[in-house]
């Protein structure tokens, strides 16, 4: 096993683990904002996963998806914030 193989395999496991951990936060909350932050972090993990997976599968097509995920995750977070802040403060 070369270093790159080892690191890719390990990376996948680490990302998988962190996704599970983040999901626990998402599930327990307690506030909506907590969940939103967890969701944001999940999508960050997704981007990382996509990058690692492109190496693992020897295919670069997926990297484009990463950009979209970044854009959309941001938009989603802003939308949730919009919801939370609706009519609350100046």
């Amino acid at each position, binding site marked *: 096993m070369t270093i790159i193989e080892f690191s890719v395999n390990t990376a996948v496991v680490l990302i998988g683990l962190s996704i599970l951990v983040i999901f626990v936060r998402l599930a327990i909350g307690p506030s909506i904002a907590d969940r939103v932050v967890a969701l944001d972090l999940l999508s960050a993990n997704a981007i990382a996963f996509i990058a690692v997976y492109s190496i693992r*599968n020897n*295919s670069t*097509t*997926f990297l484009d998806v990463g950009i979209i995920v970044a854009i959309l995750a941001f938009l989603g977070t802003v939308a949730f914030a919009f919801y939370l802040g609706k009519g609350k403060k100046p």
Partner: protein
Amino acid sequence: MTLLLALVIGCLYAAGIFLILRRNMVKVIFGLILLAHAANLLIFTVGRLTKGIPAFVPEGAGMLSGEFADPLPQALILTAIVIGFGLQAFTIVLFKRTWLTLGTEDLDLMKTTDEPPRE
């Protein structure tokens, strides 16, 4: 993985139907969305899973050969997702409008259209 996805699809269907059977309008929407997901994933799975190799003709090659993911189910799902989104957007707003107009989200209180005939 087919096994796992079959499980996921089953759960999506079950959860979707369960939610549609609620009296709360918003839950019904969630149920419908789950069903849409379930159907998409179902098409994806029964179109056979091929790991990793997307259906792109490699640069420089004239055609794609070897093992690759079937592009047709993907195209179908894409269409279905988009259509599903249109319907979903409409439905969400419909439910909201209904809530605003009728003042309830309890579906069991919406029976005027089916009022039993009078004697």
